[in-house]
């Protein structure tokens, strides 16, 4: 498990994280939710050692972040940050191949090639493996980066807003893929998610953050409730249920519900059905 104790982080004069204590369970799909500027990404980047630790302590399966060599941590967790442009011109297969670096340090073996093939296959990238990254769509590039993270073969996957560039179909497929990883291969996933319904539909554990503090955490049914979400986002939010899971109706205002639909009502109704 990931254990965070007394974690504070400051950037300049502003405090991003206030003395956080948090335990993220193993073998679960954990979603970090919260409004913009809540500190979700900062927390994830600190756990991923992409930012230097200022105050507090982070342990991953007993490995202390401050004392464990970075190369050893790369065998325990894989991280996908928000995508930056890559200066070198790489093929999809090459990028995914870099995911095996922590295992071979420049001398790939048969097992590494096999892991890359598996990752490409798992993310439907095998037909694209010889294409250059700048010749494929943003969503495909996103999948390539995910496949690289997956190929690293670590127990923990940390993802910073992986749904960013994906359309509905690919977003759902990705969440299903992550859920499979957790349920099928026993991996642990921690992901920052903006769209709470993906958390509602797929997560096992939800951590809600606001202003650098944990507001609520637990199973989706206990965190994704009207009072918690309304307070979290400072706006009234209605929560329904669908297939036994919460369904967050955040896209309209409750008091507009009774207002008539604009345009020919019958056609609109038809289109909705």
């Amino acid at each position, binding site marked *: 498990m990931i254990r965070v104790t007394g974690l504070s982080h400051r950037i300049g004069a502003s405090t991003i994280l206030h003395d956080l204590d948090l335990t993220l369970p193993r073998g679960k799909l954990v979603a970090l939710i919260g409004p913009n500027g809540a500190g979700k990404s900062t927390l994830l980047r600190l756990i991923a050692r*992409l930012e230097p630790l200022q105050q507090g302590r982070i342990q991953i399966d007993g490995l202390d972040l401050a004392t464990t060599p970075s190369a050893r941590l790369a065998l325990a967790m894989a991280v996908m940050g928000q995508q930056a442009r*890559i*200066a*070198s011109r*790489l093929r999809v297969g*090459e990028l995914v191949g870099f*995911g095996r*670096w*922590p295992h071979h340090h420049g001398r790939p073996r048969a097992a590494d090639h096999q892991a890359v093939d598996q990752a490409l296959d798992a993310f439907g990238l095998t037909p694209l493996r010889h294409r250059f990254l700048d010749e494929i769509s943003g969503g495909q590039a996103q999948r390539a980066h995910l496949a690289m993270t997956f190929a690293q073969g670590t127990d923990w996957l940390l993802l910073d807003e992986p749904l960013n560039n994906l359309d509905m179909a690919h977003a759902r497929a990705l969440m299903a893929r992550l859920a499979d990883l957790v349920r099928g291969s026993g991996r642990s996933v921690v992901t920052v998610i903006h769209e709470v319904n993906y958390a509602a539909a797929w997560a096992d554990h939800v951590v809600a953050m606001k202003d650098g503090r944990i507001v609520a955490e637990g199973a989706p049914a206990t965190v994704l409730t009207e009072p918690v979400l309304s307070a979290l986002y400072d706006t009234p939010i209605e929560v329904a249920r669908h297939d036994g899971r919460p369904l967050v109706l955040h896209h309209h205002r409750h008091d507009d519900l009774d207002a008539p639909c604009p345009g020919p009502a019958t056609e609109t109704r038809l289109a909705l059905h």
Partner: protein
Amino acid sequence: MARSARPLIAALLALLAAVSLVWMVQGIGGGNRSFILQLRGTKLAGLVLVGAAVGTATVLFQTVAANRVLTPSIMGFDALYVLLQTALVAGLGMAGFAGLPAGAKFLAEVAAMSVLSAALFGTLLGRGARDIPRTILTGVILGVLFRSLSTFLARVMDPNAFAVVQSVSVASFGSIDAALLPMAGLIMAACLGVAMRLSARLDVLALGRDAALSLGLPFDRLVLATLGLVGMLVAVSTALVGPVAFFGLLVAGLAHRLSPSSRHEVLLPVAGLIGALFLVAGQTLFERLMGQTGTLSVVVEFAGGLFFLFLLLKGRIR
């Protein structure tokens, strides 16, 4: 080495050998062959060294900067070289400057330039600043400072001494000091050896900071080591022939275009070979075929400048 790159490297090597052969034996007369061959051999070695140093230094620098438009000279190395020369002439006078032992002066120059890169980037990166754009901006500003200082020194200097300064502060591929070559060769070989050893790690570095850190690469240390190498390589080439601003850009751009792989294991030798080939072929052309009517450094800078504009206009700045 990647198999797909072998034909390219073999072709570049063959071309370089052919051009070098032309350089060595073209128009060699009956009298005093050994003297001519020795003179030409010295020049050839110098050109190959400088071309390879500039090419590899630019590729290394562009990887660290994650930018294909910058060259090490933008960090103010050429300006420091000119300042160094100006200060020496101003401090020692013309006679004193000419009387300096070439070897000691060269070592001092390499040391000064390497110390600059270590000090500049060491302090910038040591404080946990992983901000490459800020580092580069600092370099540009230092370059301006060095240039202003040399302009100031040149203003207060006597006109004859200023003429000496001008002669050393413009790139000249025609006058390479033979005494410097063995030392320059040794330093170069060591730098290239280290760069090749680091090549797999540089591939990971090129993925960007987040990806590299997440794969367990000691990012900051590798950036520092690479910049140190760049500093030494640029120092060697600058001390041998003087500042060349756009040549590296041209060579690195071609290397990236021609190389079948973006692995540094391939890129570095390709860039080194292209740089050497460029200089030897260019010097042969200008010295032999055109009878010294042109100056290679001017043409190289012109072509490099055009390439720079091309990159700017095509929006290739990243």
